[in-house]
C-alpha cells in the first residue's frame, strides 16, 4: 500500500532470511513501476528464496502495491510457484502416456516407499522433493526420471535406488 507497510512486512517475518528479503526488495524496486510484473517478481523471488512463504508474498504485495490476496491468487494458480520449502534436489517422475505405460507408475510407488513421502512433499531432512510431471517430452527414453536438470533414461526400480543414493551421498551436486 505504501512505504510503511513494507517495513511492517519485514518486521512481521521473524526468522526470515533478511539478506534474501533485501535482495528481493531490489528486484521489486526494478519492477514496481511496470504494470503486470508480478509473475516476473515472483519467479525471481522464488529463485532467491527457494519458495514463497506468505510473509514473502506479503512483502512483495506491499512493494508492488497489490493486495496480498491477489498475489497469493497468482502464486496458488501456477504449480511452478511453491509455498513450502523445497528439497535440495527435486525428483520428477514423468507420468506422460509413454512413461506411464512403461513403468512410471511403479517408479512413483518406489519413491513413496523409499523416501516415505507423497507427491508434492519434501523429505524431513530437506534433501528431496518429489513431484510428478505430465510428459517432459522425452518419450523415447521412457520411463524417464528427472533429478533437478538431469534426465535419466529407461529407469527401473534398481536404477532409481542407485540414483537416489548417488544424490544422497553428494556425488552429484545440485
Amino acid at each position, binding site marked *: *500500500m*505504501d512505504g*510503511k*507497510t513494507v517495513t*511492517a*512486512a519485514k*518486521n*512481521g517475518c521473524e526468522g526470515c532470511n533478511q539478506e534474501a528479503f533485501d535482495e528481493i526488495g531490489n528486484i521489486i524496486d526494478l519492477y514496481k513501476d511496470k504494470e503486470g510484473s508480478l509473475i516476473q517478481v515472483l519467479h525471481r523471488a522464488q529463485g532467491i528464496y527457494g519458495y514463497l512463504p*506468505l510473509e514473502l*508474498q*506479503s512483502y512483495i504485495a*506491499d512493494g508492488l502495491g*497489490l*493486495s*496480498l*490476496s*491477489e*498475489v*497469493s*491468487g497468482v*502464486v*496458488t*494458480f*501456477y504449480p511452478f510457484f511453491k*509455498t513450502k520449502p523445497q528439497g535440495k534436489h527435486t525428483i520428477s517422475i514423468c507420468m506422460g502416456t509413454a512413461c506411464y505405460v512403461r513403468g512410471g507408475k511403479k517408479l512413483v510407488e518406489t519413491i513413496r516407499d523409499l523416501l516415505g513421502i507423497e507427491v508434492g512433499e519434501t523429505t524431513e531432512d530437506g534433501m528431496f522433493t518429489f513431484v510428478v510431471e505430465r510428459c517432459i517430452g522425452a518419450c523415447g527414453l521412457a520411463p524417464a526420471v528427472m533429478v533437478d536438470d538431469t534426465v535419466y533414461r529407461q529407469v527401473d526400480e534398481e536404477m532409481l535406488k542407485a540414483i537416489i543414493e548417488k544424490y544422497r551421498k553428494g556425488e552429484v551436486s545440485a
Partner: protein
Amino acid sequence: MAEITINGLKATVPDDATILEAAKTVGIHIPTLCNMADVSSFGSCRICVVEVEGAKTLQVSCLTKVRDGMVVKTNTGKVRKARRVLYELLLSDHDQECLTCSRSGSCELQALGETLGVSETRFKGEHDSPPEDVSVAITRDMGKCILCRRCVAACNEIQNTGVLNAQNRGFDTVIAPAMEGKLGDASCVFCGQCTVVCPTGALRETDATKKVWEMLDSGKRTVVQVAPAIRVAIGEEFGMEPGSQVTGKLAAALKALGFDDVFDTNFAADLTIIEEGTEFLGRVKAALTGGEATLPMVTSCSPGWIKFIEHHYPDRLKHISTCKSPHMMMGALVKSFYAEKIGVKPEDMRVVSVMPCTAKKFEINRHEMMNNGVPNVDAVLTTRELGRMIREAGIDFCALPDAEFENPLGMSTGAADIFGVTGGVMEAALRTVFELVTGKELPFDKLHVTPIVGFEQVKEAAITIEDTLPAYAFLKGVTVKVAVTSGTAGATMLMDQLEKGESPYHFIEVMGCPGGCIMGGGQPRSKDPDVKQKRLKGLYTEDEGKVLRKSHENPYITKLYEEYLGEPNGHKAHELLHTHYTPRGMENRLADKEMVRKEVSPA
C-alpha cells in the same frame, strides 16, 4: 454510434456499448448472473450468451461490444439450450441445499433456474468444498459459491480492500483471503459489501437471529435500538419501495417481537454530536492557541472504517475521534443510566442493535466496548435479519399501526436521521458546532450543507466563521475546512493525502460503505438502480419533517447531561461514551492476538 439489429428491432447505441446494454435500450431482457453495475465485467458465468450473425460461436453479451450492422438473436433454441447447460454446470459445483439456505427465496441463482426453465441437474461436480469460514460478522460458505466473482469486484474494485480473490485453480478454486486464510485473520474490515452482491448464500452475515430469539425467550430485560438507515430500508424486506419511511411500523414491529424497551440509536446520534462536537472544538482550540492537538479529526461512527484505518494506517489513529459509535454509546447508557433508573443490574440486561451493517457485529466484540466487565451491546442484527425475524414471528409489517420509540432514550432530532447517509454526520455536527460558536443558525437552505450532500466520492466544504460568541473568539475569521467520503477507496485517497502532509482539512467524515449506512453491508439487497438516491431522499425527508433538527435542541439530551452525565467530554462521559483503538497493521501483524474478546454467551 452503431446501429445493430436485435431480434429484428433496431438499436442505435454508442460504439463502445455491449450487446447487453444495447438490448436494454430496446426493452429486450437478456438473463445475467455475474454482471454487476459500475465494475469491470468479468464474464465468468456465460449465462448472457447470444447468437451473433457471422460468429462461429455464441457470444457473451456482457463483454461483446456492438459493431455497426451487427445482427443479434437473444432467444433462439440454440441460445436457450446453451443457457440451460451453462446453468446446470454452475449447479454441478453448488451444494444445492436450497431448502435450508438463508437465501432461499431471495437467491439469484435459484431465480435464474426458474427463468431459464431448468428442470433437471444432470451433472455431479466435485463437492469437496472447504468448511465454512465463520467470522464474528461474515460467513463464507464455499459450498454455495459459483465463482461469479461479484464479491471480488466489490472487495477489490469498489472498496479497494483486496481481501477476497480467487485462490488455487480449476476445481480447487475458492474465493478467499490469501492462501485460503480466514476472514477474521485477514485485513477484512467486515463492511459486508460482498454479502450484498453475492447472488447465493455463499457470503452472508453471520447469523444472530438465533441468539436474539434466545434473549427474548430468556425473560431477561431485552432492550433494542435501531440505526437511522433502517427506517428507510426495512420496508423493502416486505415489498415496499426503497426509501419508504416506515419508522412507526418499525417501532411497532419491535414491540410486537417482544423487546422490553424500544429505543432509538438516533438518540445516541444526537449525543454523539454533542460529544464529538465538543471534542472537535477542544482540538481546534488547542491547535489555534498554541497547544497540542491532532487535526484533522476524523469521525468514528463506522466500525468498518475504524478497522480499515487500524489495518492500513495504524500510525494515524490519533486522528480518530475518541467517541464510541452511536449504538455503542446507547448500549453503554442502557446498562448504566437506564439500568439504574429501572433498578436492573447491567449484567441482567441484554442490548440488541439493529444495524445496516455487518461490521457492527465485529464492533460489539471488541475488548474496548465494555464497561465494568459487561459488554455494551450483546447482539447485532442486520436489516435483513430483522426482516427475517419479523416474518418468522408472523407479523404483518405493512399492516402495523405506527408506534413510537420510547423515552428517555427514544427521541431524536432531524440531525440524527441523516447520520445514515454520507455527509450526514458532518452536516449534523456543523449544525450544532456552528450555532454553538456563533449563536446563529448554520447559513444553508433547509440547513443542508449542499456541497457535502450526494454520492461523489470525496466532497468538501469550507465555512468561514465571521463572528463568534465571546467564548469562541479564537475561531474568529477562521475558515473551517471539512471533507466527506464514503467507501474505503475514498478513505484511502484522504488518508494518503494526510500521509503526504497535504491534507487541508480540520474535520473529516468517513463512512465505510459507498453512500454511507443506507448502502451498508447489512441492508436489503435491492435490484432498483436508484436505491441509493431513494434511501437518501427518505432520510432527508425524515429530517425535514421534524420540528427539532439540531442535536443540541433535543430536550432529553439536555436532561441526560443534567441528571447523569454532567459535562460533555466530562469524566462520566469519557468513561461511558469514549474509547480507544487498536493498531493492527496488515493481516493483523501489529495487533495483540487476544484483541477480540470471546463471544459473550446470551445465557
